[in-house]
């Protein structure tokens, strides 16, 4: 039962994150939103681990790999956001309004 | 040797072309030696092939590019007719071009692409399958463009643009026709009759029209001829190439191939597409002549004359009687010899006497006798004066028209002859009978320019005088048609 709860929570996180990624203009918010989606996907994946009798170790291995990948992506994204802010003085992409 | 002979003939122009690109501009001797050497080797190889094909030998060199995509070189008698012409004229045009471009820039580029054009023409002539033909046809289109824009000024760039604007849609039409046909029949070889029965007549008519549209641009059939007069912006050796050695001829040759070897003369008649093609060719013959009359620039007049004359070949093939086909095929060579003479001479008048307009020709006969005699022979041949080459073609075409029950074509030939006389005789009159302008000057100091013109003029006299020999263009065309009708 609890596995389903994780899966549902994961799905909600994914939806929230996609909303944030599309709706937010502030680049840092978008980076955070990306991480929210990532967490949702990993939670969802983790929920599958208990679906077939004894716990399946593969999803955990996948999640750990995924977290490492997401972390590197986040690091690069934050670095680019900072560099872009320093170079252009803006925290949003050109042609997009900066959030309040 | 015999298996690789077609490949060797192709390489004899391809290798000099590729090497020339990498030669430094200053390496005149090496570049000239390479191109003339290639041309001589090619003539030698073609002679060997001529003799053995005349005795009935066959050649086949195939290379699989991809499943269903075979590069097949299978020279037959028709191939040799075209190939011999282009190889001979390549040699003479190279001599002419070396003299013409002396001291001018970008020679490596010119000679590289020029030889590449000849290589493409050779490949196209030897093609044994439709797709091989298309590949070389396309290569010819592309290799010609840098020659058309060679002078890199506004006029030549505009000419290049117009040329591609006509040629690329044409090749798309050609590719559609080929793929449509081959998707039903499988790969089509010229040597074996294609199973065209698998297509209904309407599809076949559309495919035939697409083929004619695709080739018609190169052959200058109206209304697809617009690029040819514009391309006159190119230097004289390029005009010679376009009008005599390669491009226009490739279109006419292609129409002959499609009609004779893909559809077959009988089927063309059965489909009822031969007469429309003959009418289109006749219209082109007359329209080209009328437009030629209106030009006062020598090269433009010659260009429209080509539009008119090349359609003699198409007319002969479209009339589909044995004599008409012989006349048309022989004219492929005859027109090449006469037209290249005229362009060589026009180039000499422009370069050595500064004359580009018709008025400037006044009295040049005495100042530049050799060139003027050559020009006159070419022009009289075009009109069809016996015993020059054009006369032979016209006789065969006329007999063929009667034979295939298209007496109206005789009227076209007669009208065209009158028009030819109308736009060429005034030129000859100016050359020989009018006094030169007071500031007229000119010399024939460059043998490299004059000798090729005299040689081609002599050749167009020779092929008329010796038309009875089996190795004359007429004799060879007869051989082709005999093999076609009496296999």
């Amino acid at each position: 039962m609890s596995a389903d709860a994780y899966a549902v929570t994961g799905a909600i996180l994914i939806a929230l994150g996609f909303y944030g990624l599309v709706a937010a203009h502030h680049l840092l918010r978008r980076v955070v939103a990306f991480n929210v989606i990532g967490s949702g996907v990993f939670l969802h994946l983790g929920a599958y681990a208990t679906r077939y009798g004894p716990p399946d170790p593969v999803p955990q291995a996948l999640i750990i790999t995924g977290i490492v990948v997401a972390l590197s992506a986040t690091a690069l994204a934050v670095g680019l956001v900072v560099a872009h802010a320093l170079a252009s003085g803006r925290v949003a992409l050109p042609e997009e309004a900066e959030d309040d | 040797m015999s298996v690789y002979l077609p490949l060797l003939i192709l390489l004899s122009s391809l290798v000099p072309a590729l090497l020339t690109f990498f030669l430094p501009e200053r390496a005149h001797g090496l570049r000239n030696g390479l191109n003339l050497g290639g041309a001589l080797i090619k003539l030698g190889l073609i002679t060997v092939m001529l003799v053995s094909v005349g005795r009935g030998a066959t050649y086949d060199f195939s290379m699989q590019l991809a499943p269903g995509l075979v590069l097949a070189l299978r020279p037959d008698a028709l191939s040799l007719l075209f190939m011999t012409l282009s190889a001979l004229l390549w040699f003479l045009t190279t001599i002419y071009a070396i003299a013409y471009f002396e001291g001018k820039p970008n020679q490596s580029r010119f000679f590289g692409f020029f030889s590449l054009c000849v290589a493409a023409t050779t490949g196209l002539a030897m093609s044994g399958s439709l797709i091989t033909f298309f590949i070389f046809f396309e290569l010819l289109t592309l290799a010609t463009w840098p020659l058309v824009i060679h002078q890199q000024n506004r006029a030549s760039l505009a000419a290049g643009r117009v040329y591609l604007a006509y040629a690329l849609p044409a090749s798309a039409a050609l590719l559609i026709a080929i793929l449509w046909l081959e998707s039903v029949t499988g790969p089509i070889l010229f040597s074996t009759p294609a199973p065209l029965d698998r297509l209904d007549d309407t599809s076949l008519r559309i495919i035939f029209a697409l083929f004619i549209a695709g080739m018609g641009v190169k052959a200058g059939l109206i209304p697809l001829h617009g690029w040819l007069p514009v391309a006159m912006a190119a230097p004289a050796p390029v005009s010679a190439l376009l009008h005599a050695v390669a491009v226009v001829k490739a279109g006419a040759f292609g129409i002959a191939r499609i009609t004779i070897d893909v559809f077959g003369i009988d089927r063309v008649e059965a489909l009822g597409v031969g007469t429309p093609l003959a009418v289109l060719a006749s219209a082109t013959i007359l329209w080209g002549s009328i437009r030629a009359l209106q030009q006062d620039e020598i090269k433009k007049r010659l260009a429209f004359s080509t539009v008119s004359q090349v359609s003699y070949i198409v007319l002969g093939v479209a009339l589909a009687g044995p004599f008409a086909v012989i006349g048309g095929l022989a004219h492929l060579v005859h027109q090449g010899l006469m037209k290249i003479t005229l362009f060589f001479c026009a180039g000499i008048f422009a370069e050595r006497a500064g004359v580009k307009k018709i008025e400037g020709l006044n009295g040049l006969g005495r100042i530049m006798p050799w060139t003027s005699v050559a020009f006159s022979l070419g022009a009289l041949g075009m009109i069809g004066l016996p015993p020059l080459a054009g006369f032979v073609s016209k006789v065969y075409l006329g007999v063929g028209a009667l034979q295939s029950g298209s007496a109206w074509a005789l009227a076209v030939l007669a009208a065209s002859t009158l028009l030819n006389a109308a736009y060429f005789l005034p030129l000859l009159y100016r050359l020989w009978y009018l006094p030169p302008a007071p500031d007229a000057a000119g010399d024939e100091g460059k043998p490299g320019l004059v000798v090729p013109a005299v040689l081609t003029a002599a050749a167009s006299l020779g092929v008329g005088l010796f038309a009875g020999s089996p190795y004359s263009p007429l004799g060879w065309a007869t051989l082709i048609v005999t093999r076609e009708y009496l296999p």
Partner: protein
Amino acid sequence: MDAIVVLLAAPLAGAFLSIAAPRLAVVASALVCVVAFVAIGLLGAEMLELGPAIVVPGNWGVPLGIGLEADGKAVAFLAMTALVMAGVITAASVEFAPGSGRRSFGFWPLALLLWAAMNAMILSRDLFNLYVGLELLTLVAVGLVALSGKADALAAALRYMIFALIGSLLYLLGVVMIYGAHGMLDMGLLSARTPAPADGLALALMTAGLAAKTALFPFHVWLPPAHAGAPAPASALLSGLVPKASFLIALRLWSEAMPDIVRPEALVLIALLGAVAVFHGGLLALRQVRLKLIIVYSTVAQLGYLFLIFPLAGGEGAAQPWSAGAWSGVTFHAVSHALAKAAMFLAAGLYMRAVGSDELGAIRGLARSMPMTTFAFGLAALTLMGLPPSGAFTGKYMMITAALASGQWWWGVVLLGGGLLSALYLYRPLEALFDGEGPAEIIRPRRREELAPLFLAAAAILLGIFSAVPFDLIYVGRPDAAVTGL
């Protein structure tokens, strides 16, 4: 089979070496090139004899372990990557000479990592492993876009990254659903699975994600600023190679892993998007006045061609005789596009340096002072137009033949129409290059910088002339029905 491991390890090792010893970056890259060519040669020879090569690293069997498999298409794409890399490395050894600042320090590890990621994605058959490859490729590509450090390049990199990350997450979500339904991720095993209800949605999610990364219309808006903003050697890699990897995975999913659940309408929809991309990209290319932007929009159009294969070789079409021709056709097209596009970007970079701008008005008449570069540009243009005797013509011929054989002639019309359109938009820069005498004073490129684009463009042409050998290779690993072809 050791060759497969070498192909993954060598670029990675090269990347680490070029970080640890930046002065040796060019040497390391050249070494990786040599090793890669030898490995690909051995792999190809082995495959022709023994069929597809399979490696399971660490002896962990599938499904727990990760399967690496080299079939014909894989070797074709590996060779494409190596050829483009060799050309770009040659050219970049001047522009990014070691020790010439931050940009050159960044370029070499990024380029080699990109190579490693490409090879991983071409060889891997494990959906999750492919995700990791996709992410690595994305991050490296973003780094290359941002290389110049200017504000607009950074903005282009960020925009690219947003699209790419959404794409990765969509793909990952699809992978998670597949794992949830079947408990396995290997493509070979998945092809024999019992279909589950969620398969359709999972495939749709993965495809959407991959399409965003391949810049399929309407997900292409990130591509022009990103590819045009990068330095020329980086653009060559980004435009020539990067989209091909995600395309290859999408195609494998639709024709190898799960062709059974694919519906014909979906195939037509994807190809329609491709067709729209061909014309949309072509028309936009026609309106650009900067050479690099023309090339970039041409990439949008040329990537569209690739998707025309879906109704020919995806879904039920995968088992049909014409799928072999379509597969080979699209492989030829992809490879020759990569070579020609890389050549074109390198040439554009040289023009840009010579006169300080890539506007068509500025590069007028450069054919005179830079004939070799212009020759390369012309050959590349001929390839992109799909004219014989280039490899792209062979590809186009095969694809049109397959379209006619399957009764879907309209895709052939798209191919021909797109070819004419590309002739139109590529004619403009060609004409500009030949227009007049050109400037007297230019910054001359080094000899090897001029040779690199010529080498790449010539390779694209030679591919068309000698296409028989690659053909035998591409066929390795095809189902029997498809090998016989038409």
